[in-house]
Every structure is written in C-alpha cells, then in structure tokens.
C-alpha cells in the first residue's frame, strides 16, 4: 500500500467518508469538514497509523495532503 493510500484510509476514517479520494492538492479549502479541529484529529490518527510524531513546525505548515506526504514519504523510503 502506498503512503497516499494509507493516508486516504486515515482521512476516510476520520471524516467517516469512504468517498474521499486523496490527491496531493487535497486541502481544507476543498473539503468543508476539514477545519483546524479536524487537522488535529488527522494528525493524531496519522501518528498512530504511521508510528511517527509530527513536530509543531511541521503541523503548522500543513496546508494540503502534499505537505503531509512531504513528511511521511521519506519515512517509508
């Protein structure tokens, strides 16, 4: 399973929306339920799923799925 596929599972679970299809451009602006509270839920779920921990700086820079992938993909390579 690719990183973005694993990430998509997390998004689908957090938002309880199996129709979510992630692209790197997917961002809060394109998904109305993705507010700052949802970002925290996403980050905590991603940390649990991927066994890692974001730094505060990394989280502050998350504006889209691309920003998450930039942290997660190096971990799996």
């Amino acid at each position: 399973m690719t990183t973005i596929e694993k990430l998509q599972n997390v998004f689908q679970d957090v938002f309880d929306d199996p129709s979510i299809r992630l692209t790197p451009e997917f961002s809060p602006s394109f998904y109305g339920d993705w507010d700052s509270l949802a970002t925290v839920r996403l980050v905590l779920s991603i940390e649990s799923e991927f066994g890692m921990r974001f730094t505060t700086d990394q989280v502050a820079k998350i504006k889209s799925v691309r920003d998450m992938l930039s942290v997660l993909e190096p971990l799996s390579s």
Partner: protein
Amino acid sequence: MTTRTFGLTDQLAFAELSGDYNPLHIDPVVARRSMFGAAVVHGIHSLLWGLDVWLRDRPLPVSVSAIHAAFTRPIRLGDVVTCSPVTERSDQAQLHLLVDQSVTTKIKVNWHPSSSRDLDLFAVGFPQRQEPRVLAMRDAENASGTLPLYLNPQASARLFPHLAAAMPPLRVAQLLATTRLVGMECPGLYSLYSSLDILFRADANITPVMTYRVTKLDTRYGVAMMDIGSPNMTGVVTAFFRPPPQDQVSYGALHDTVNRSEFAGQRALIIGGSRGLGEVTAKLLSAGGAEVRLTYHRGAADARRIVAEITSAGGHAGCLPFDVLDCASNMGGVLGPEWTPTHLYYLASPFIARGKNGVFSGSLFETFCNYYVLGFHRMLEPLIRRGLQRVLYPSTAFIDELPPDMGEYATAKMAGEGLCRFLEKAHPGLIIHKPRLPRMATDQTVSFMPGENRDPVPILLEHLRTMANDHALC
C-alpha cells in the same frame, strides 16, 4: 431516522441534570466568542439523545455493556440533527448523528438482552451549580481527582425517557459525570469533549463517585486523555484544551504605535466595535485623538470594557446598542441630533461559516448579504443624508483567492463592494475605502493550529491612515 433540534431550554435542562454549566453550552452571548461562533450542544447530551432514540425501538430490558462515542463536529443550537442507524447486530449497534449530512457524533454501543431491568437505587438529585474551573495545560499533567455522582431520576426520565427506563441510574450518572469532568473540571472553562470509551460491568457495590486521572497530555495541540473509573466501570475520556477568545491589543500598548493627534478631529462611529477588528479600530482611532462611539449588538459587557479601557487612559469613547439586521432601527435616531459622525467604520459581521466544497448555499449567502449589503445600506443611508463623507468598508482577500468553501462569503463581500461603488456615484463627495483585508487574528479565526493569523494592528492602522489622509482611496 429521527430528527430534532436542541434549544436553549433543552440545554439548560441538561446542564441542571449533568452539572455541566460551561457557558459554551448555555450562554449564547459568551459562546458567540468561541471558535464555533455560537452555543453548542454538550457532546454527552447528543450521545444520550442518540441512545434514547436507539432504545426506543428495542425490546426491553437491555443491558448496555460498552459505549464508544466520538464528538467530531459541533451541533449548534437550532441545527436540525438526524439520528441515523449505521449498523445493527445482535450485540452491537452503530449510530451517527448528522447535521447537513456531516457526521457530528459517532456512537457504538455493545449490548445484550437482560433478564432483569437491573435497576439500582442510585438517585441523589441535581449537582450544585458551580463556575467552571480554568485549568492551565501545564497544570493538567497527571491531574487527578474524584467527582461525586448525581442523578435526578425524574429529570432524567423527562429528557431521555427510553434511556431512563432501560439503563441503570448509576450508569446514566456516570455518563453525566464525564461531561461535568470535561466542562467544569479538567480542562474546565476552555474545553471541548472529544471522545468517550466506557466499559460497564456488573458490580454489587454502588460507589457514588467517579475517579479521573490524566494519563496522557499532548501539549502540541492541547489534548488530554483521562482514565475514569468506578467499581462497576472503567473508561477513557479524551478532551481538548479549546483556545480561548482572541484577546486584542491593549489601549495602553498603542501609544508607541499611533501618533497622538493623527486622528484628531474625527468623530468616528464604529459599527460592530465590541470585539475583533472593531475593537482594534476603536483603540487605534482613540489613541490617535479621535472621538469614538462604538456599537454592539449582544456584547454590551465587551463594549463597556473597551470604553472603560479607553476613557480611563484619557481617551474619548462611548458605546451604544445597535442591530444592523433590525429594519426598524434608524442609526440617525439612535445617535440623536447632537452627534454626527465624520467617519464611519463598518465592522459588523455574522459568524463566518464555511460552505461546502463547490456547493453554493443560498441561505448562507443571504446571511452574509443581510450584514454586508442590506444592513450596511440601511444603516448608512440616514448618515449620508446628515453629511457623512468618509466610510471604511472592509472587504476581503478571499475575493481574489476564492477558496472553494468561501464562495458565499466572498460573493457577498463582492456585492458589498458593488454597493459601495454605487453609493459613491449616487452621492458625490462620499468616499468609501474598501480594502481587501487578509485573514487576521480575531475570534472568527481562532484555531487549534498555531501561527495562521496576522496581527490586525499594522494592517488596520495602514488603512485608517490612508483614509484619514484621503490618499490612494480605492
């Protein structure tokens, strides 16, 4: 599927039953300054309603052995909430509560038929009303304590008749105690209930207390996980330290920023001046020598606090109530004949709700237009007739950026800009400054994420100076 709305009366009844009197749930004036812009339903209130709906259709008696609940989005008072079954097995049910097709509450219940109603004799009345504690995050590490349990069976049966008939009072009292824990104790005033996992077991000992202990604290986002327990129950409560309302710059701090006389001679009327950008505008203008009057709709206490802060430091300020949506309210009449503004600053705004991605909501657009177009025009007309010539109408950078979920807001502001141009043409001499402002730190933009918002002081000051000098007017 079953639907309902939660009103203030429902909320007050639940607060009395549970002892969770957090103003986020029962005080619309205080709650308007929360990140949700309005009072929201207790998560446990929504859970118990969902369970009540589910139990309505169950053959009794039923024994609930475990509950998982996640409160994923706020339910505002007046929202139409739908309780929808997701899955149903012989020993487990899943329910969702939804508002506008978004899931607000996820519930999973483990249950089995019971041979008896298993009712205990636990009933001790209402908890005493108290003020919520303000627990600092640094003090939450390893915080622990004991909460007494309460249940008024009659009130419980009125609010949740099927639940009260099916679930032992002790367990209802324990569920209620978890909202008191979050909303009143830990984290207390600035809290948000996130999720509950609770496991019940049969136990002959009825202990009328629940213990709690913070077992994990994530200070990056203010998340606290707490173990809860009683002889018949164990569980985990997850809660957020919710960001408090956005404090704005103090009047005293502006004396090095603003020239004492740069706004002298202005009689400045600030519509929506009790907080946020209106509050900053009032302080900047007053610090620069303007005579300020600010209006408020519901925030009388906030407005008086600002006026007191300004006047106690030697500035000139006053406040008055005004509702831009009240068609019968005439600004000329409200001000009286002896005080006519030279400058008007229009900062009135509803809660800036985001729309759904790519879907244009007519009702949301109408809400914005009522403030940014119709209310603005209705308020302004009588002042133009009295000679007003300088107006600040703050527009938004979202007109240029046009995020897919901000179409209603941006379009309403565009309409407001159009109205401003029309009025300038219709009234020669009238100049309306309408800068497209970026996202700034206010109650509207309070967030769990750090560093997203800009300081309003330098941005507003630049536009106030431009307007005062009548240079580069848009």
